[in-house]
């Protein structure tokens, strides 16, 4: 009991600081959430913090922003498009990257170092620079404005970082595993599917979240490679088109932000366990 009290007091200041920082961190999101439930006239007239004067005056809250967002962006089609883009654009690069990372870490082949140096170099290429040449190639191949086109684009942009992260993790696996498996007669492919993949699950989960969120939130690549017609436009493109060209109706964006946040939030909370583990994975070599 006394011990507990002592620890509360000794950790008290630390906890206060942490709570304070967390509050500051979360404040903009809280403001966003509150604004999303206020009418446009209220938003224009006063700040979101004024609701705390009468927090239980429910007549001041409204769902009309959400209604309008869901109606205006054609939520069903936009969600479907986003999923059609995001799921393959997450799976394809991670699939390729896990093969590549394994090969870079544990297989001997000529030019391995050289290829790896190129890969690391690709990490720093700004993707804006690649747009015109890549779009030209897509036009030649006839895949500009199609879903496969944007899958390739996201795969290309995602690969260097994903390979690099997975390489760090996979190369940290104990070499005895590989030695004993090959003595038992396992082929490299079997080692990969039976040993490497199951052991790297935390790292795979965390890069999956990274890549998923990146593709989910992407506006620029979708707009340039896919265009903004309702048939193909993902959520981000439709949402950015909600606001007028002078920034009118921005209060709709607050509701739209939570609409587009919903699925990643569920995913993130669901995979959080792996996420924290995965960030540490590969950072310390054993």
């Amino acid at each position, binding site marked *: 009991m006394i011990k507990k009290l002592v620890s509360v007091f000794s950790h008290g200041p630390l906890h206060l600081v942490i709570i304070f920082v967390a509050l500051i961190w979360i404040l903009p999101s809280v403001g966003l959430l509150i604004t999303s439930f206020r009418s*446009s*006239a209220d938003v*224009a*007239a006063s700040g979101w913090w004024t609701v705390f004067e009468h927090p239980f005056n429910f007549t001041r809250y409204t769902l009309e922003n959400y209604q309008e967002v869901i109606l205006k962006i054609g939520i069903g089609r936009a969600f479907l498009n986003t999923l*059609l883009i995001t*799921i*393959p654009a997450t*799976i*394809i690069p991670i*699939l390729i990257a896990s093969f590549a990372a394994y090969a870079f870490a544990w297989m001997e082949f000529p030019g391995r170092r050289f290829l790896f140096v190129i890969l690391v170099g690709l990490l720093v290429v700004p993707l804006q620079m690649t*747009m*015109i*040449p890549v*779009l*030209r190639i*897509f*036009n030649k191949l006839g895949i*500009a*404005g*199609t*879903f*496969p086109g944007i*899958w390739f684009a996201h795969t290309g942009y995602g690969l260097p970082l994903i390979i690099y992260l997975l390489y760090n993790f996979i190369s940290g696996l104990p070499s005895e595993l590989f030695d004993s498996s090959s003595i038992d007669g396992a082929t490299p492919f079997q080692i990969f*599917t039976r040993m490497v*993949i199951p052991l790297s699950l935390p790292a795979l989960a965390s890069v999956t979240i990274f890549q998923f969120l990146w593709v989910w939130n992407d506006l*620029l690549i979708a*707009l*340039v490679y896919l*265009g*903004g*017609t309702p*048939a*193909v*436009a993902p959520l981000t*493109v439709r949402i*950015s*088109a*909600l*606001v*007028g*060209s*002078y*920034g*009118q*109706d921005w209060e*709709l964006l607050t509701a739209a932000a939570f609409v587009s946040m919903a699925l990643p939030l569920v995913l993130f909370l669901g995979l959080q366990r792996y996420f924290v583990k995965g960030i540490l994975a590969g950072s310390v070599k054993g």
Partner: protein
Amino acid sequence: MFKKISFTLLAMLLIGMLTSSVFAASNTVTILGVWTGAEAEAFNKMVAPFEAETGIKVEFTGTRDLPAVLTTQVEAGNPPDVSALPNPGQMIEFAKAGKLVDLSTFMDMDVLRSDYSPTWLDLGTYKGKLNGVFISADLKSLVWYSPKAFAAGGYTVPATWEEMIALSDKMVANGKTPWALGLESGAASGWAGTDWVEDIMLRTVEPEVYDLWVTHGISWVDDRVQRAFELFGQIALNEKYVYGGTNAVLTINFGDSPDALFTTPPNAYMHRQATFIKSFILDHFPKLVPGEDFDFFPFPPIDPQYGTPALGAADMFAMFNDTPEARKFMQYIVSPEAQGIWVGELGKLSANKRIDPAVYPDDLTRKAAKILSEASTFRFDGSDLMPSAVGGGSFWTGILDYVSGILLMNVLMTIETTALDAYRK
């Protein structure tokens, strides 16, 4: 695990291929525009009769990143069939690169010449080729006020710059603040001030000198440019003239600044802004009646010999791919029928002379249309015509620097330095 993943992937691939092949259908016209939100809805309303009549499907993409998206697509070789352009300067860039279709090859030029005033056609012409057509305009040279507040204070609408300054002084003497001015606009902060300087330039120099200024034919440190800034400063830098003082001028958002006119008692009495600000006022104060609760008068003349010119911005279209569908679309949007729907929805002003004034949503808009059509001189927003390093860069920041108290000569020198670099390219 592997089977599951590959199955999902295959399924997605299939769905993706199927859905993406649908929109590759012909008989469509792809259009890129800057319009989003309510403006995009108005655009869709405008093209609905076209789609119904011709059976051509309009694939419209609206993005506020139009310059970036359009440049990328043009460079990569798959431009939209038709695109809105932010300003005539951009049109000239594309025309120089040979990317635009000469519209006079298929448009009925006689009808165009009778429908449009020569100014509009000239602005869309480059080296004898008609490369762009205008569908609508926004008039910028307006001062908004509340007739009720003016009546209550015993104020009258000024007809000249001197009268306007005298009126401002009178308001100050009565313990009031005459002007609502806000320059904040995110990354584009300062643009609202460039409109002031342009309007003043138009009223203090010949239109030809204004054109020279836009093309950097005269320097930024020129006396005439300096005078325009100083006249702007006469209002913007006067702590007693502007609501909240100069600090507030720098931090209040341009869209929120007219709010000061409609508080009780009014925090300010006058606000210079383009026609589009009406939608902001109505959005923030839905109960106000245009024409009764708020109105505007033309930005008054300064030097009498230059009269009351009109400064404006306009929405223009250019054609990148010469397809039969795109041709039909271009022929449609220059018609008064199409523009009637568009301007009726948004309260913009039509570029077509044959437009029926009844399509305008209210008397206020009809009044603006009258000012625009009767203006002795019309000039395009100068900052939109300058290279973006100046017109979308140092001119904006120069306004902010000037209002924040930096010496005018230093401000103009800074703009001149960037201009020397930007116009060389």
